[in-house]
């Protein structure tokens, strides 16, 4: 079982696959996944809190809590829950 959040796919797993880069390593995703979904599916978290160093995996999933910030190359700080994965996208957790 994965550590951290146990996000589980329950439908729509027949979508085309994509690849993007997360902190320099390849991360798979399905077309239509947000960066939050793809990151949490792989690692169980999306970022680390600056204040308590705890792992965070999104809270509101709707762009309100700001607990899913990542940096996307060419776009700066973005909300992972509101950003759909694109092939070859480069994402950093901090």
């Amino acid at each position: 079982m994965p550590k951290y959040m146990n996000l589980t796919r329950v439908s729509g797993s027949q979508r085309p696959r994509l690849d993007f880069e997360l902190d320099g390593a390849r991360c798979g995703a399905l077309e239509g996944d947000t960066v939050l979904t793809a990151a949490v599916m792989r690692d169980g978290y999306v970022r680390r809190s600056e204040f308590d160093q705890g792992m965070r995996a999104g809270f509101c999933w709707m762009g309100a809590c700001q607990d899913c910030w990542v940096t996307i190359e060419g776009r700066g700080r973005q909300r992972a829950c509101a950003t759909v994965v694109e092939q070859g996208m480069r994402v950093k957790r901090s």
Partner: protein
Amino acid sequence: MTAAVAIIGAGPAGVRAAEVLVRAGVRPRVFDEGLAAGGRIYQRPPGAFKRSAKELYGLEAAKAERVHNIFAKLEKYLDYRPQTLVWDIAGKTLFTLTGGTAYGTETFEQIIIAPGAVDRVMPLPGWTLPGVTTLGGAQIALKTQGVAIGEKVALVGSGPLLWLLAHQYVQAGAPLAALVDTTSFAAKARASAAMMAGDAATTLKGVYYTATLRLKRIPIHEGAVPVAIRGEERPRELLIKDGKGRDVTIACDAVALGWGLKPETRLADIAGVPFDYDEVQQNWIPVREMSGKTAVQGVYLAGDGARIGGADMAELAGARAAWAVLGERGAFVDEDEVNRLERALKKEAAYRDVLDKLFPFPSEILAGLPEETVLCRCEGVSIAGLKRTCAADAVAMTPLEVNRAKAFTRVGMGRCQGRMCGHTASEILARELKCGVREAGRLRAQPPVKPVPLVPVTTEALT
């Protein structure tokens, strides 16, 4: 270019507002930060991920399709700006950010602000663990991403969304560990006659969800109090006091929390609309007339962003606000239609009143939380941190209210701008200062309403 009328939000309220305006020959400019129109309840998965309306919206499928179809038909008559966040309003100018990178400004003569709502949550020990989400978050994950937040999910809170979400998780084949409702069964039973009289169809949907959950033997605790979420890397168990005051430990791997919704009012605030504390909904809400008109000329409000009323009410309020805008513009106003909308709005409001009284925010639970509980998720401020400010201020004998507490403790100054903690900070402050939440004051909004990236950006004005 001046778009005569701007609409913020393409949920049920914004879509119906747009429909009325287009029929009257106005071409509104519609901004929505989402990927597709539909708003929260009728939110769609991103492009490639196709699922049937029935699978996505269950009993609300027909309504969802109606709203989506109206928008699809309208689209060529609108200036629609998807993926566009409106982050500031100054006079008659809007400041926008499209696709997370392209800044722009737009002007308007009248504006209908319909930005919807967010979950109203409460802190609990352990609520920052990965695998704890809002009820709405757990629903969005399922609806738009086809993922469940865990394989043994505990749902905690109160209100219609709690039971609906439980039903949706069970339908999707995602196992539930328990449903923990802070409202007692007895309170619901007492309100049932008034609810049936107010809106039989909606009430019966609730009864149906409840019945299917009981049939599936999902453990249900009513009149319960959540105590803590325990776990190291993710939730392992949820501790509660059940309806009889007994300690119960629920094994789980995820928890979703929510006690109704609170309106997203920051744009109205920045636009200068006055606010009032709504004792029934226990939220600060922008003051507006039934038509959506506010004290600020040209600024109208509709939908859950003005006051929580639900999707049906949002549709009515959106249409009503559009007629008010047409009136201000000196265009023809169909008075019969306006009267019909107002009658329907009053009927919905009466039903909502029953719901609001049945599902109050259980602020007494806050009083029992351990002092070290993290209150502000963004900056890690604890309840004790907020209380220390109260004590220090009492010594200094200066009047304290949330905005000052915010300055001292940074509660509400994190990047969510108090969306997750603002109302609980007010409740705690009010208890400490032995005053009402109204007297504890309102957290004022500041632009940008959501953080916007500083670098790198392309500054192409969209005008």
